[in-house]
C-alpha cells in the first residue's frame, strides 16, 4: 500500500513534532492534515480575509474567538488587535466562540501556556489590516477616488472631500472580491488608540447580571434542547479501579430517575434534573476492583521519591562546569530538601459537558480549553467520524489547565450515546476534587557550594516526580491522530509517543534548569517516578513549584553568604536586564528594606512564558499564623495590550498562588483522594487577601505571557518573608510554621 492513498506520510517526525506550546514544556504537535476539510466560517458575501474575522453585508463585524475565554480576558484583548487595525472600537465587535477550524490550530486548538496574545498579536493585526485594505480598495473603486484620500472611522469608510461614506457592511461584498493582501501595512505603535489602553472587558455586563452562559447552563434559559436530561456519574473510590457490578434498585425508585447505566467511568444516573440524579446516585451500590493504587498514600509516594533521590541518577537537564569538583573544593556546602504536594485545580464551575447525538452528528457543548481535543475524543466516544462532531465552546468557570483534558467530554458523549437523548453530565464538587488531573507532587534536593570568600561557586538541583506529558500522551494523543490512522495503530503510537516524551518532558524542570543566576557550576537533573496518580497542567505548570524551590533556596544561599537577598540577586543577574529591571522597580515601589512596623519582606523573581516577574511580599506572623498584607508586583511582559487585564491577571495569579502557598494540598489515601470539598480543600478568602500593586517595565518588546507568570514568584516571596520574620525556613507547601 502506498502512502499516497493514506495521505501524508506517517512518520514519527510528523506525529511527534514537539513544540513549546503548553508552558515551555513539550507538547506533542500532531499533523492534522489528514482531517476532513473544515467547514467554512461565515457566509457568502462576508468579507473574511482570514478565519478570525467576518464583516457581513448587514454590517456586523464578527470576531471568531478561537482561544477560549476562561477569565483571562481574551474575549476583550484579542478583538482589540483586530479593531485597532480597522480603526474600530473593540466594543463594536461581535464575538463568536469559534468552532474547531484548521486555521485555529497551532498545531492544536488549545488555550494554555499563556500564549494567546503572544501568538495572535501579529496574525490578528494582519487580519484586521487586510480587511481594512480590502474595504479601502472597494470604496476607492466605488467612488473612483485614490485610496490615499480615504479613511476608516467608526465602522465606515469616508471620503472627506466628496462627503462620500459607506458603512463596512455596505462595502463587504465588494471588498470580499478584492484580493487578500499578503503583507498589509500595520498601524505604527504611535497611532494605537486601543492597544495599550484599558479597553473595558466586553463580558463585564453579562457576567454581572447573570446572563453569561457557562457550560453548566446549556439548555437552561430558553435554549431548546428537547428532552435534555441531567446525569451524574458514580465514580471509583480509587484511581484505576474498575466497575465490577452495581445495584440500582433503590436508585431507580427516586422520582425523576430515567435510567441507571454502566459507562466507562462508572455508573451513570440519568434523571430529569441534577437533584434527582444526585440523590439517586447516593443510592447506587457499586462494586469496584481494588485498582492498581490500593494501599498507596501520599506518605508512601514521598518516601519512594526520597529513595529514588538516594539511589538513582537522574536525566541531566543542565550541566554547566563541573559541580562535583566545585563540591570537592568548596569551603562550605549548604543543602536543603523541598517537598511539593499534589494540588487540585478546583475551578469554581465543576466539570460538565452536554452532548447530543442526532441525525448522524454529535453536538457537544463544552467549557473547554481544547475544542479539537474534545472533538477527537468525542468522535471515538460517539463512534462517528471526527467531521460529524460539532464542538460548541462555552464560557467556562475557570480552567487553569484542568479544562485542557477532555475526559469529562468523552464521558458525556458516551452517556448521551447510550441514553439516546441529549444529556448534560454534571460533576459534583466531590467528583471534581477526587477525579482531577493534579499538579504533580515532587521532591527536590539542592546543594550550593561557597568558597572561602562566601562567593557561590556551584548549584545542584535534583528533583523527582512524574512526567505530565508522558502520562497524558497515551490517553489523549491517540485520539488526536489523523483519522486515516487505523484505531489500533493510534493506540500503539500514543503509547510509544508517551514513552518517547516521558524521557524528555521539560515541564518537570522548567523554571529549574533555566536558573538565570551567574554561577559557574550548575547541575540540574530529574528522576522520573510515576506513582500512577493522574496529573496534569496546573496554572504555570512546572514553574509553579520550581520557582518556590529555586527562589527559596537562592534566599537560603544569600543568607548563608551574608548578603541582602535583593543585592545577592542583582549581583548575579547582570546578564539578565529584564530580571534586573523588575527587581529594581519592585524594590523601589515596595521600599525594600523598610517594611512597615511589625512586618517583614521577602522577594522572588522568576521568568516564565516569556515574561519576567518580581514580587515582594510583606508579611507578619502572629501566633504561628502567616498573614500577607501587601504584594508589590513588577512585570515585564513586553508590550501591554490591556493594562487593566494584565493587572487583573497578576492579582488573580497572586491569589491563586497564595492558596497554594498558604492553604491547600490534596493527599492520596488508600489509592484515592482524601479531600472532597472546600471544607478540606480551602481556598484563599477575601479577608486573607493582601493589597496588590502591579507595575510594568519595558513595553518595547513584543507581548509575552500574562496568564501564568504572576503565579510562580508569590510562594517563595512569602516563604522568604516568613524567614525574615521568624528565622524559620519553610520548605514544604502549604507553608506551616513549626
Amino acid at each position, binding site marked *: 500500500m502506498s502512502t499516497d492513498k493514506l495521505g501524508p506520510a506517517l512518520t514519527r517526525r510528523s506525529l511527534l513534532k514537539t513544540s513549546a506550546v503548553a508552558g515551555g514544556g513539550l507538547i506533542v504537535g500532531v499533523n492534522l492534515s489528514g482531517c476532513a476539510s473544515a467547514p467554512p466560517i461565515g457566509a457568502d458575501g462576508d468579507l473574511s480575509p482570514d478565519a478570525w474575522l467576518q464583516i457581513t453585508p448587514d454590517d456586523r463585524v464578527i470576531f471568531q474567538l478561537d482561544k477560549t475565554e476562561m477569565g483571562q480576558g481574551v474575549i476583550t484583548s484579542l478583538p482589540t488587535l483586530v479593531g485597532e487595525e480597522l480603526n474600530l472600537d473593540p466594543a463594536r465587535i461581535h464575538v463568536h466562540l469559534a468552532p474547531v477550524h484548521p486555521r485555529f490550530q497551532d498545531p492544536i486548538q488549545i488555550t494554555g501556556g499563556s500564549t494567546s496574545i503572544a501568538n495572535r498579536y501579529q496574525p490578528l493585526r494582519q487580519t484586521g489590516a487586510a480587511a481594512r485594505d480590502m474595504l479601502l480598495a472597494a470604496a476607492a473603486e466605488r467612488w473612483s477616488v485614490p485610496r490615499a484620500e480615504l479613511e476608516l472611522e467608526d465602522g465606515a469608510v469616508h471620503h472627506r472631500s466628496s462627503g462620500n461614506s459607506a458603512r463596512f457592511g455596505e462595502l463587504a461584498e465588494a471588498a470580499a472580491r478584492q484580493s487578500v493582501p499578503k503583507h498589509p501595512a500595520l498601524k505604527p505603535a504611535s497611532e494605537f488608540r486601543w492597544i495599550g489602553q484599558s479597553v473595558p472587558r466586553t463580558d*463585564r455586563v453579562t457576567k454581572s447580571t*447573570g446572563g453569561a452562559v457557562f457550560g453548566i447552563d446549556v439548555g437552561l434559559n430558553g435554549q431548546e434542547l428537547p428532552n435534555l436530561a441531567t446525569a451524574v456519574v458514580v465514580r471509583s473510590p480509587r484511581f484505576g479501579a474498575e466497575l465490577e457490578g452495581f445495584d440500582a434498585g433503590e436508585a431507580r425508585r427516586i422520582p425523576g430517575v430515567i435510567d441507571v447505566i454502566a459507562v466507562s467511568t462508572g455508573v451513570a444516573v440519568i434523571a430529569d434534573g441534577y437533584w434527582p440524579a444526585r440523590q439517586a446516585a447516593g443510592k447506587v451500590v457499586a462494586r469496584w476492583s481494588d485498582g492498581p493504587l490500593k494501599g498507596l498514600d501520599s506518605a508512601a509516594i514521598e518516601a519512594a521519591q526520597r529513595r529514588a533521590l538516594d539511589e538513582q541518577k537522574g536525566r541531566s537537564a543542565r550541566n554547566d562546569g563541573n559541580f562535583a569538583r566545585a563540591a570537592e573544593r568548596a569551603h562550605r556546602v549548604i543543602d536543603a530538601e523541598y517537598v511539593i504536594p499534589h494540588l487540585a485545580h478546583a475551578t*469554581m464551575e465543576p466539570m460538565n459537558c452536554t452532548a447530543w447525538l442526532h441525525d448522524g452528528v454529535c453536538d457537544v457543548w463544552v467549557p473547554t480549553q481544547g475544542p479539537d481535543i474534545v472533538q477527537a475524543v468525542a468522535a471515538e466516544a460517539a463512534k462517528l467520524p471526527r467531521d460529524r462532531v460539532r464542538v460548541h465552546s462555552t464560557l467556562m468557570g475557570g480552567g487553569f489547565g484542568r479544562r485542557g483534558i477532555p475526559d469529562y467530554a468523552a464521558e458525556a458523549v458516551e452517556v448521551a450515546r447510550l441514553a439516546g437523548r441529549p444529556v448534560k453530565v454534571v460533576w459534583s464538587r466531590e467528583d471534581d476534587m477526587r477525579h482531577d488531573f493534579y499538579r504533580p507532587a515532587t521532591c527536590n534536593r539542592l546543594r550550593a557550594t561557597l568558597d572561602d570568600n562566601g562567593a557561590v561557586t556551584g548549584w545542584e538541583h535534583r528533583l523527582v516526580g512524574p512526567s505530565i506529558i508522558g502520562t497524558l500522551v497515551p490517553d489523549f494523543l491517540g485520539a488526536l491522530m489523523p483519522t486515516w490512522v487505523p484505531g489500533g495503530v493510534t493506540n500503539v503510537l500514543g503509547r510509544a509517543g508517551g514513552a518517547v516524551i516521558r524521557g524528555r518532558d521539560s515541564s518537570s524542570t522548567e523554571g529549574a534548569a533555566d536558573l538565570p543566576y551567574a554561577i559557574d557550576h550548575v547541575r540540574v537533573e530529574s528522576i522520573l517516578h510515576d506513582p500512577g496518580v493522574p496529573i496534569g497542567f496546573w496554572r504555570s505548570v512546572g514553574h509553579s513549584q520550581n520557582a518556590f524551590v529555586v527562589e527559596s533556596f537562592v534566599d537560603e544561599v544569600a543568607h548563608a553568604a551574608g548578603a541582602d537577598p535583593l543585592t545577592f540577586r542583582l549581583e548575579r543577574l547582570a546578564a539578565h536586564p529584564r530580571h534586573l529591571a523588575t527587581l529594581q522597580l519592585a524594590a523601589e515601589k515596595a521600599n525594600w528594606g523598610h517594611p512597615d512596623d511589625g512586618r517583614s519582606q521577602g522577594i522572588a523573581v522568576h521568568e516564565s512564558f516569556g515574561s519576567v516577574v518580581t514580587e515582594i511580599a510583606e508579611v507578619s506572623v502572629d501566633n504561628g499564623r502567616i498573614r500577607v498584607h501587601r504584594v508589590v508586583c513588577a512585570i515585564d511582559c513586553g508590550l501591554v495590550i490591556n493594562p487593566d487585564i494584565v493587572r487583573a491577571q497578576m492579582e488573580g495569579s497572586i491569589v491563586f498562588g497564595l492558596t497554594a502557598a498558604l492553604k491547600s494540598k490534596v493527599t492520596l489515601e488508600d489509592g484515592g483522594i482524601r479531600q472532597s470539598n472546600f471544607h478540606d480543600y480551602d481556598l484563599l478568602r477575601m479577608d486573607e487577601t493582601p493589597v496588590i500593586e502591579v507595575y510594568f517595565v519595558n513595553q518595547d518588546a513584543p507581548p509575552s505571557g500574562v496568564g501564568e507568570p504572576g503565579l510562580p514568584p508569590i510562594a517563595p516571596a512569602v516563604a522568604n518573608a516568613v524567614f525574615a520574620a521568624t528565622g524559620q525556613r519553610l520548605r514544604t507547601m502549604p507553608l506551616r510554621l513549626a
Partner: protein
Amino acid sequence: MVEFELNGVARRVDMPADTPLLWVIRDGLGLPGTKFGCGMGLCGACTIHLDGQPIRSCAIPLAAAAGRRLTTIEGLGAGPAISDLHPAQQAWIEGSVAHCGYCESGQIMAAAALIDANDDPSDAEIDSALSGNLCRCGTYPRIRAAVRRAAELKRGGETVVQSFDPNVAIAPVGGLRA
C-alpha cells in the same frame, strides 16, 4: 406544590419539597445565573436573597421558600440601562471585577445584601460579609473595591458606565441546530 415570589413574580412549583432551592431555580425555573459550586453551602456561588437576606440556595430546601420572597441575580436590578441595575452590579461593571465570572452572581448577591442593609460598611464589615464567597480566579481585590464603590453609588453616586449595547457582545452559545 410550593408557592413563593421570585424576582417579583408569583411562582408555583411542583417539585419535591426537599429539593434545594438552587435546583428549583436552575432546573425547575430555568434561571441559570445562580451557580452550583459545592452543594454544601461552602463557597457562596449559589447565594440568593430570601426576604432580602443572603442565603446559600444549595443548602436550603424548597419547603423553606413557601410564602416568601426570593431574589436571584436576574431580578436584582431592573436594567437594561446600567444605571437601573443594582449599585453592586454597577460597581462590578465599572470595576471590571469578573474574570471567569462564575462566582460573581453569588458575590454580587452577598454584596447587595450588605449595602442594602448598610450603605457605609467598614472594611471589616465588607470582609465579614464577603469572606464566605470563594473566587478561584482571585478577584477579591476588585470585589473589595467594588463593594466600597457600590456603597458610594447607593449613597447617591452616579455610575460612570452610561450605556452598553447588548446587541454587540458575546454571541449566545450557539449552534443548537447549527
